[in-house]
């Protein structure tokens, strides 16, 4: 039995797919994990990294999102210190508080019946992380199922799969991809599209509106990608 992934690995071509996916998860992870830092935003603007976001050709949402973020970063007005303050406020009011959170960035907030933080889902996420020896820095006090951490997990496992592929271990790469697929369908896809829609609706800056569209688009594309990679060859 051989999957597309294994076949690609043996030809040395799997790495390219994993780098694209890793890039996408990594960029979004950086956007959602923590408050924006000025040097990070300026670097995104200067480096043109957003224009390199993959899969645009497969998703209207990704294209729209890239355009929105691209336009935001292209406007020098948005890179002033004052604008950085506005961007920071956008992140604060969306994801930190102290007032209502239009888009609480935790899986448990969306999936528990009473919309609380920390639930059975959080424990399942913790278990998935632990199976790769990964733990959140603030485990115990902050929920493990923050959007940034879940993207971090996808990013990290893309790296592990790429490592395996590099070493020519197609079977190992395959196992990691299967775990990614499980994580994507059992966690991210169950809530992040709704979360993304909330962010896109409530964000005041093109930066977060666009990142939210890219997130929703990526998850849909990546589901198909993983399906394809794991299909028997």
């Amino acid at each position, binding site marked *: 039995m051989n999957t*597309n992934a294994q076949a690609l690995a043996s030809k040395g*071509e799997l790495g*390219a*797919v994993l*780098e*694209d996916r*890793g*890039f996408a998860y*990594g*960029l979004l*992870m*950086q956007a959602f*994990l923590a*408050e924006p830092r000025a*040097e*990070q935003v300026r670097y*995104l603007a200067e*480096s043109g990294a957003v224009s390199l976001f*993959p*899969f645009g*050709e*497969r998703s209207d949402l990704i294209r729209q999102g890239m355009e929105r973020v691209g336009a935001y970063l292209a406007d020098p007005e948005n890179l002033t210190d004052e604008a950085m*303050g506005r961007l920071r*406020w956008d992140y*604060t009011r969306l994801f*930190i*508080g*102290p007032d*209502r*959170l*239009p888009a609480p960035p935790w899986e448990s907030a969306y999936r528990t019946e*009473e*919309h*609380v*933080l*920390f*639930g*059975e889902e959080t*424990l399942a996420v*913790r*278990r998935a992380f*632990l199976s790769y*020896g*990964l*733990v*959140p*820095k*603030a485990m115990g*006090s*902050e929920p493990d199922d923050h959007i*940034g951490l879940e993207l*971090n*997990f996808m*990013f990290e496992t893309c*790296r592990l799969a790429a*490592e395996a592929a590099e070493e020519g271990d197609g079977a190992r790469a395959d196992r990691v991809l299967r775990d990614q697929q499980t994580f994507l369908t059992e966690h991210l896809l169950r809530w992040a599209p709704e979360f993304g829609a909330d962010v896109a609706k409530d964000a005041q800056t093109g930066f977060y509106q666009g990142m939210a569209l890219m997130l929703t688009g990526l998850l849909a594309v990546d589901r*198909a*990608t993983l399906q*394809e*990679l794991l299909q028997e060859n």
Partner: protein
Amino acid sequence: MDNPIKTAGEHRLSRRSFLGWSAAATGTAVLLGSQTGLIQLGDGTASAAAPAQEGKWVSAACWHNCGGKCLNKALVREGVVIRQKTDDTHPDSPDTPQQRGCARGRSQRQQVLGADRLKYPMKRKNWAPGGGKKELRGIDEWERISWDEALDLVAGELKRIKGEVGNKGFVMPRINSKLMNAYGGAMTTWGVGSDGSWPQVEQQMTGGSLQQNDRLDWRNARLIVLWGSNPAWSSAGSPAYNLLQAKKAGAKIICVDPMYGATHQMLADEWIPVRPGTDAALLLGMAHHMITEGLYDKEFIKKYTVGFDYLSMPSGTDFKENFKDYVLGTHDKMPKTPEWASEICGTDPDVIRHFATEICSVKPMIWTSTPAPARTHRGEQFCQAFLTVGWMTGNVGISGGGVWKAYHSNQSYGSRTLVSAGGTGAAGVANPVFPYAGYGFADPDKDNWWSPAYEELYDAILKGQYHRGVHGMEKCDIRAIYSIRTSGGGNFLNQSANINKGIEAIRKVEFFVTSDIVLSTVSKYADIVLPETTWWEKVGTVASGNPEAIVVNKQVIEPRFEARDGEWIERELAKRLGLDPLKVHSVDMQQQFFNQIAGAKVMKKDGSGMEPLVTITDADIAAMKATGKPQQGRISMAELLEQGVYQVERREGDNFGFIAMKAFRDDPVKNPLKTKSGKLEIHCQSLANKIAQYGFSKCAPIAQYTPPEEGYETTFADFKAKKKGEFPLQLFTIHYPRRSHSTFDNIRQLREAFPQEFYMNPADAAERGIKEGDTVKITSPHGAVIRPVYLTERIMPGVVTLPQGAWVERDEKTLICKAGATNVLSGTHLTGQGEEPWNTVNVQVEKWTGETLAPDVTWPQRIML
């Protein structure tokens, strides 16, 4: 469909340079993987095999000012609370009921774990030392800051202000901060909230706090009068259930209230409506009937009271001032007949006569009130009249009978404590500016205190002066509001009268700091807000509520996000202010918990006194990381912590009974009361003198009726001609099962179960063209709110109500509150001993022409997911 595998790799090299996956690809400023939230465990060993842990039930605190203290437990697995349950530690019975939680307690998980918890220290963006843009308080943006920055900023402002104006430049409304006290003190606020006008009246007229007969003795009553009481809503836990046992045992129950509430539906044989603020008039009308018909207990009045008639007047008083002559109108030519009363209180004169006859003929009778009718302007007159008429029936110091007030944690319970928690052992720190606990402050004649009453705080800030008892008006310059709470409470802006004036006052000061678990109303208007732990995140505590049980609560979860407990915050501030942190909070929380357990006492089986409750071994002490001595008690520490509650088993005829005032009743000469005369004082000069010292309003030495501000009479432009005025309706406010005061108002399921509706009689609605479910605007002289209306015959015509405690949500342009916070409507009237007159408010109601309000559970709420 495009094939992702084919299209991949186009920009491979450029993408790769961002990834940082291989050591070679560096040189870029920010790599995508450079800032991560996940870390790799030390040796990278996968621990997928670690089996899921079993859940464990933990006794979890329900710490609110609700009156109850129920047992709530949380099922905790790997630090996550899976679900809750309540008391199942023993079989339920009427004699020894389980301490079962209400809808709020069962929503505790949503409160503690809600997405709206305050997570990090936050600073208002446009605040700067000195105040910054003060007018933006409540509408400003926020910034997350570190604990160090937050603590430095707070300490800096405290130092600056103390340096500029001294310690009276600080006010800490409704709290008593040990840090501020150690730093030289701060003004506080004093007066009476829940207890209304009762404290001085009971102290002066009876020489102490009123006590109640044992819970099981309530079953010996043949008649119980519940005045202004709705325990099914306002004293959740077991009180309504306990009263049901008395009813089942044969007591008739009469309820007096402007509204026919849930308790009345459950228990009342008769409901007697009365207008808010006019209860004293109703009682005087009853007294008139009792006197003219000779129904009252003359023997009792003669032997146990002073001031009823001119023959029993205390020496040194004007004999004409006696109660009987006032009621009969001997000197003022105004007999307080049932007809006279009816015109004021709205109760039918025949009902008044019938009621008066009944309380004199059915014995024994329990005559009990909450302080709700005393939370009125001139509330003292209700308390005086209630005691006087109660005493006229002679039901004092007997089994199945008594005259008292009971509410909150003592509703339906007796005053004898059967089990109690030990003290925390933490030393108090006196406040040099106001060396009192604040509540029911009784020394307006002393010269050792500086602080405004609750109701005068905002004027003190805005106008720079306040009433200082016998010393007259005192100037002040309040620069900062300190509201770091070490034990909750203190949501003064939402829970004190006149929120609009409060916001104006807050926008005047230079600095306002709070600690909070969510962004409650006070914190919304603050400059710096510090995240505080809930009791589920602290080491543990022992809670006392009803006198027959204590609840032992353990830590359930780790502190959420960056929340810290209030004592830690104050110790950190102490360091920055150059104070010894251990002089502020002397004992750590773990040791406090241990002390509460070790010091717990239980009534001996023979009822002769208290003995230690808990057996403690050296191993227990070591496990608690506490210092202490082993001791012998009735239950092991492990067992107590496991079951989370200790309740004294009860049965009728056990050794734990109690009859209030029995010693006095049995021998008033040998066991005199601590009043001036040693008797119950119907005429009480010391009360009149004391109230005069506060300098707000006058109170006669006997029960009289003088129309209050914003009472019934003021709803008229011309009372004689019965021509209504600008604010023709009377609003009173109720406790509601959705909240404990303001706590829990952010919980979605409680919002859904208990909508915040405005109650109105259909007759009043019809006059205004208002239909069921309409959105209405309620306007008082002090502010306006909008709410959906609920029409019901269960409320008297002319009277309306709205549950208190909703979190104010004010439109900054119109100043209209759409949440229906009742304190937007109530005014800051200075009265009596500084009580808050929440139940005397005049309003007008009209159909709202703006957008219809959706139920608040569906709102994109200010606070909540």
